[in-house]
């Protein structure tokens, strides 16, 4: 067998196994669009808050973002594979969505969400937890970096003035949603280009 198979071929086969296993584990990059969409939704909601009918800004914008996410995800056909990793990452974001929905709808209806800084601190801490857990599971340093930015935002919001906390929140959304989302989409595009046809 060794005469038939060159060392180069053996190395290529080992590399192929590694590449395919990495491909199978890849889950979050294809969700780059989702980070971008939610980042834009946050910006729209924040801008609308001070405009007429501002009390409807967050419920309507977040509801529209959920609907759009659902439509885009079902059109792209989902992951079409089930891995323990994708289930773990998916469950983190599902739990985040449910917690955010229940908490902020309840706070909004009860009228107890009076301090913007508390809102920013809670949202940023939750996003830090979700990004941190997801980034750690995937071994993705860029997402871990996003988690750190969200945690800094959460802590800052507890000590800064309302206007400064708001500015830091906008900056965090820009880097951790818009830039990270575009980065995820570009990485996915690059992976698609790199992928070569494999023949038996």
């Amino acid at each position, binding site marked *: 067998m060794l005469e038939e198979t060159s*060392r180069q071929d053996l*190395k290529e086969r*080992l590399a192929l196994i590694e590449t*395919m296993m990495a491909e199978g584990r890849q889950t979050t990059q294809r969700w780059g669009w989702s980070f971008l969409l939610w980042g834009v939704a946050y910006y729209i909601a924040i801008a609308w808050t001070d405009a007429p009918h501002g009390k409807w800004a967050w419920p309507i914008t977040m509801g529209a973002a959920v609907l759009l996410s659902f439509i885009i995800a079902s059109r792209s056909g989902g*992951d079409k594979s089930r*891995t323990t990793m994708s289930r773990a990452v998916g469950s983190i974001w599902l739990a985040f969505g449910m917690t955010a929905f229940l908490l902020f709808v309840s706070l909004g209806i009860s009228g107890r969400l009076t301090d913007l800084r508390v809102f920013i601190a809670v949202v940023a801490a939750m996003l830090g937890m979700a990004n941190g857990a997801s980034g750690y599971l995937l071994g993705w340093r860029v997402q871990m970096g996003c988690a750190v930015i969200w945690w800094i935002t959460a802590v800052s919001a507890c000590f800064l003035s309302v206007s400064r906390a708001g500015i830091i929140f906008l900056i965090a959304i820009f880097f951790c949603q818009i830039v990270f989302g575009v980065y995820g989409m570009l990485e996915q595009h690059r992976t698609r280009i790199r*992928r070569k046809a*494999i023949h*038996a």
Partner: protein
Amino acid sequence: MPDLPELNPVVHGKLRLALLSLLSTAEDAEFTWLRAKTGATDGNLGAQLARLEEAGYVAVEKRFSARKPQTLYRITRAGRKALSEYIQGLKQLLGTALDNEG
């Protein structure tokens, strides 16, 4: 000098090796996902999956999801063992090749 391992010819085909490697990371996967990840044609992919199924390395489940037919593939215990043994064999052969060069 130790005996050189024989590489399993079913696993040895590049596309079949890619498929087993992909499936080893997933609980199950659709035909379309495997096609997208490998870039193989429908015909070639179907033929190689059939060969793996014949060898007992891959199990197939056909079902309907949202009224659409769906074919799911998953690696069997025998497939996982064959892949693991193939990787060990590859590493052993590479080690021997490097020793011979040195």
